[in-house]
């Protein structure tokens, strides 16, 4: 029913999105914690930087990524010496997806961190738990629903990312052709409408599945941390 190129696009999208979410989750938690709990010089600037991909045209973000992480970019050239290449590779698609989803993840986690009662953390410290132990055993479990929500949002954003991805890593079938890029490519090809329609249905199915699973997970986690 599906052609190999269509399967390849779906598989690549899933891989790109999963890697993007898993890799950006730890820094997202760290930045959310900094923004929610610490007052420091540059707090506003950091917040603005994190939110930038949300307001910039995706093409601009993609182009900036190309300038920075491309083979001749400042970071890209350095990383290439270590064998890490982003431009025109699926890893680049994952980087673009991570950057675009980052503000959504940070936002969801930060909101849940701000809802955690700091007096519970104070209570943990009087019981002998240091800062790291308190974070791991009290704060982290309490914000688990927020982390989950952030991850789901980030995943959805990554699955749908198009502008920054196509600018940064182009649209190479089997390598950087994600689901949205494939639909776009099929629409540009005479006789490609059938493929485009099938991929569209697939995208709808994946999105629906993700929503159902995340709702179920969210309920379970909320019950586990005693907030439901």
């Amino acid at each position, binding site marked *: 029913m599906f052609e190999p190129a269509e399967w390849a696009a779906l598989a690549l999208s899933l891989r790109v999105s999963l890697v993007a979410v898993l890799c950006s989750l730890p820094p997202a938690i760290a930045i959310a914690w900094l923004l929610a709990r610490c007052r420091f010089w540059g707090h506003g600037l950091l917040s603005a930087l994190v939110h930038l991909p949300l307001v910039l045209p995706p093409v601009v973000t993609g182009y900036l990524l190309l300038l920075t992480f491309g083979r001749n970019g400042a970071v890209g050239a350095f990383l290439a010496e270590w064998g890490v290449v982003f431009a025109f590779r699926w890893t680049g698609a994952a980087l673009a997806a991570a950057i675009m989803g980052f503000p959504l993840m940070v936002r969801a986690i930060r909101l849940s961190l701000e809802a955690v009662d700091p007096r519970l953390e104070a209570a943990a410290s009087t019981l002998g738990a240091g800062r790291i132990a*308190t974070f791991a055993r009290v704060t982290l479990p309490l914000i688990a629903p927020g982390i989950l929500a952030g991850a789901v949002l980030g995943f959805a954003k990554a699955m749908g990312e198009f502008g920054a991805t196509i600018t940064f890593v182009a649209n190479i079938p089997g390598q950087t052709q994600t689901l949205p890029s494939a639909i776009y490519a099929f629409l540009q090809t005479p006789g490609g409408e059938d493929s485009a329609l099938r991929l569209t249905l697939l995208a709808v199915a994946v999105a629906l599945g993700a929503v159902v699973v995340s709702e179920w997970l969210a309920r379970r986690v909320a019950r586990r941390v005693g907030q439901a």
Partner: protein
Amino acid sequence: MTLAVTLAHAFGDFTLDVGFKAGPGVTALFGPSGAGKTSIANAVAGLFTPREGRIELGGRVLLDTAAKVNMSAHKRRIGVVFQDGRLFPHLDVAGNLAFGARYAPRGAPGPDRAEILALLGIEELLSRRPGTLSGGEKQRVALARALLARPEFLVMDEPLAALDGPRKDDILPYLEGLRDRARVPILYVSHSVSEIARLADRIVVLREGRVLRAGPVADVLSDPEMVPLVGVREAGSVFEAQVLGHDADGLSRLGVSGGTLILPRVDADPGKHIRIRVLAQDVLLSLESPKGLSSRNILPVRVEALHQGAGPGVAVSLRLGEDRLLARITARAAAELGLRPGLACHAILKATAVPRGDVGAAHE
């Protein structure tokens, strides 16, 4: 284990400037809301750093602003029971208790888990979630959790303030048991004279950020000068009594140093020592031994001191055997009776002068 505290801090217009010692036993930090009690408790626990201060626990310096020493809360080994319990909502009761035990130093002395569970009556609650517990149950779990961390000192910040009257009466016997068996010194922060009268050995009276009085509870509470601070309805003296026997008509006979009291049935076996509080407003004075009076409690006393406040009342401190009894009468009555220090007279107590909630176990 003694806790020595001196600290100073300014919060806008309000300045805190106190010094006191606490322990062994239960030391009450007493004062109205806004007197600085919770700030002191938090400073001791390490949750608040005052501008200046020094806090020492049995030779360990927890805070010394002059020497730039400020030990983190988690290293101080000061357990805290907060007014709002602060149980971890993501853990059940057993999980909360395990959290307390996890960071306890190996080999630290103290009652074991089974003993603490029994002492606080929470064996049945282990699999419950904090959200399903009543206020009193939450506080008992919070107390057990704090004890399992094997603190060298326990701070209890208004632990009963969030509970209603009957719940308070339920939990007070647990606190008495804890005081007598856990052998952890306690700083008990409260604005309730009744709780302090039942639990504390010593009291530190705070007013507007200053220590006004400090000393044994029986001495400070029976001081007539304390009446305006405590409130005329709450003022009363505290002393020990021994249960002599229970009579068939529902009354109990209690021996005090200056005679025998007959009170409605108290909850203690004959021979037991209990602690009672007698409200000053329920004590009458008579120059001669009255006859044909309904009260069975007529005790010979001697006037020690009088204190006239701003109102129409006078607080009279009376010597009753080795104890002190506090009476509150009108200034007019004091003048007409010619009350003066050294005068012998008779104190008359209504059987209701000792509220039910004010009969507690004596500190063993």
